[in-house]
């Protein structure tokens, strides 16, 4: 066992229905893993099993070589060296910011505790708020305190349960950056569960994509974005246009021409190619059969809706060169694409 956190064949069933099914994954020391999936796929249950709030029906969880949960062994949550940041922060409402951050430091002398609390207050930029009660803080500040409280005892693993979900965009980006930096500095192994693909792609060293209680793909953000395991993952990880095609001579023949497959394909298969919006090339062409029917301007780029004889596609074009409404085009696909064969 070389990984720092190792989850093997974890299964949880509640009231007859299976919530987690044979989940296995590993995280290296100091690594940031995101478990990505839509809500209700069992992400939170997985996190609660790791923290020890829930007992799995079978399977093993090991942290730094210690088995903390298996059929034979069970380690209490407080003895696992795991810190948790729930979605709502869950600050102790009757305690000040400083006492909340120090809540997990009962074993330290009061001088050491004060020192550690001061350190985290400064890192999480909470200076001046030490004596406030949670009710007197903004949502972003509450989450900062929750993160500081989880990290204060220097846990072996930090679990983040969508802690940024309730914040507005600007606060979210700022807090994400700060938290990421803190975790890297303290080199704490981190597992984040989220349904936000941007969050997972931008923060993580690796991503585990979850669906219906099972992990269907793991890899680096770049790998997963470039080579989604199936059409659903492709659609979940970002926009994609799905175009029917057929494999012939190692190429995918589609209405938009002959495309190069990224993954391994078999001659004669029919299925679908997934094309990212940024992979379309829109060539102005008075004789073209496609026409621009919509345009959303974002400054750095433009999302162009193009109606071809067969379908409506969304393409990303860079700002100044984007075609105008009503313009006639020919649509090309740049670079290789992923092809998913229809099961026969």
């Amino acid at each position, binding site marked *: 066992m070389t990984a720092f956190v190792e989850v093997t064949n974890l299964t949880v069933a509640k009231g007859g229905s299976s919530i987690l099914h044979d989940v296995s994954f590993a995280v290296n020391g100091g690594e940031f893993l995101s478990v990505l999936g839509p809500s209700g796929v069992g992400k939170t249950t997985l996190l609660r099993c790791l923290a020890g*709030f829930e007992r799995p029906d079978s399977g093993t969880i090991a942290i730094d070589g210690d088995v903390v949960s298996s059929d034979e062994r069970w380690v209490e*949550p407080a*003895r696992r060296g795991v810190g948790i940041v*729930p979605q709502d922060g*869950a600050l*102790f409402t*009757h305690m000040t910011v400083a006492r909340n951050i120090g809540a997990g430091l*009962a074993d330290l002398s009061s001088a050491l505790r004060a020192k550690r609390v001061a350190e985290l207050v400064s890192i999480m930029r909470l200076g001046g708020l030490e004596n406030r009660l949670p*009710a007197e803080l903004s949502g972003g500040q509450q989450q900062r305190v929750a993160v500081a409280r*989880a990290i204060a005892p220097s846990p072996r693993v930090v679990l983040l349960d969508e802690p940024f979900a309730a914040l507005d965009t600007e606060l979210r980006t700022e807090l994400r950056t700060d938290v990421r930096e803190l975790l890297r500095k303290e080199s704490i192994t981190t597992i984040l569960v989220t349904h936000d693909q941007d969050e997972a792609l931008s923060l993580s060293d690796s991503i585990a994509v979850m669906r219906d209680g099972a992990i269907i793909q793991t890899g680096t953000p770049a790998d997963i974005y470039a080579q989604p395991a199936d059409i659903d993952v492709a659609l979940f990880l970002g926009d994609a246009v799905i175009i029917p095609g057929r494999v012939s001579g190692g190429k995918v023949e589609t209405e938009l021409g002959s495309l190069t497959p990224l993954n391994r394909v078999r001659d004669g298969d029919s299925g679908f190619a997934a094309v990212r919006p940024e992979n379309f090339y829109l060539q102005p062409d008075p004789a073209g059969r496609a026409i621009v029917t919509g345009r959303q301007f974002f400054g750095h780029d433009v999302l162009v809706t193009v109606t071809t004889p067969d379908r409506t596609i969304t393409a990303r074009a860079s700002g100044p060169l984007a075609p105008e409404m009503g313009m006639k085009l020919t649509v090309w696909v740049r670079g290789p694409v992923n092809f998913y064969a229809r099961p026969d």
Partner: protein
Amino acid sequence: MLVKALSLAVVPLVSVPLVYLFIRVAEVDLGVVVTEVLSPRTGQLVLNTAALVVAVTVTALAVGVTQAYVVVRTSVPLRRLLTILATVPLAVPSYVAAYGWLGVVPGFNGFFPAWLVLSVATAPLVFLTASAALARTSRSADDVAQSISTSRVRRHLLVTWPTIRSSVWSSGLLVALYVIADFGAVSLLRYDTFTRAIFNAYRSSFDRSLAAILGLVVVVLTVALVVLYRRALRGEQSGPVNVVRPSPVVLRAGGWPHAAVMSLGAVVGAGVPFVSVSAWAVVGTSTANVERLVEATLNSVMYGLSAATLAVALGIVIVVATLRYRFTPATVAESVSWLIHALPALVVALSFTFVGIRLVPDLYQTHVFVVLGLVVLFLPNAISAIEPALRAVPPSWHELAQSLGMRPSTEFARVTLPVITPGLLAGWALVVLVIVRELPLTLLLRPNGVDTLATRLWTETSAGAFAAAAPYAVTLVALAGIPAWLVSRGLDPQRKMVVS
């Protein structure tokens, strides 16, 4: 404005009696007041009342919180049944319970019986408040505490106690006020607290200044208690509301010992009065004077219906004037009526007799006067049912209706009233049933020769006529059981909201 004019009229109705009590005492020679207040007899009353208040409050808190914890946070079996058992005593007015005990244990008098009967009667108040608060325990905070500490005690101090603390203290205040206010049980069980002494002073002497002075002492003590409580809880934060409940604490031996102890307590506490009432009912029904029973029931119901209807009507006026028009006198009327609600009904009744004799002798000892007294006493019950109903109507509808050309009165009849009607009816029905079990005020203000179920039961029991009292007890429990059942389902008709 009709609404404003009417709410203005409520102010004297609710405040004059109390003001008059002060005037009555002020008229008495100051030396007499000081002598009475400092007399050993008053000292003894303070001690007796305080001892009972402390003993009952501590017992009710311990029992109620334990029951709530077991039912809400553990894996105890038969949870539904235990909840019902814990709230069953609400169906038995304290004086009916006292009657029940006296029926099986002759000579059941003094401190211990009063403590037992009142503890059983008030523990459900704590149970309901505490279980509602416990159900709001946040699962995520409970999780974090688990990842921080292996000690269950420390975890409860981190999460559970802060969540329920203010509710527990406020239910404690509720119990304390209940004990100070209780008249029926302590008078039947012959334990001398203020209410019993006031009643005796009022009945036995020609000069009623002693009753007035004692009444004023109770007013001062009650207000002091409420003020002290508010001081102590200033700055208290309420926790976040979380829909996900923490997982239950698994009990050893499947939780059956806990269930057994809880059921045993309920059976002894509430079961004895029930059995006794039923046993006497068997004897009593054969000798019952049906005509008298029907008459008392009709009187009770008549008082209930007319006072509840008037209270709801005035309640609507007050709530509309405060919520819609921010009319200050209406706010004052509401606050004063809450204060009166916190006072013993007997003292309110006493203040009404002074007003009746001096200012409106024609009204004194008429049905109208009793109904007015009951309205003042139970106006807050009506308000607490009306207010949430009216808050549910968005103010924008009101504005929208006006922009469509409706006059405020048309708007109220066509938009607001249809929406709040279900809430109003429920509140009205509860007030009717709560009034039916009212004893002290009716006892003092009723016209000569008029009896209700409650006064009849009280008179017969005082005279030791248990069989004769039984039919009244049965009818009362049957009627009072309805609001108790609704309370246990979370609709609280007689919650004293002095707290918030």
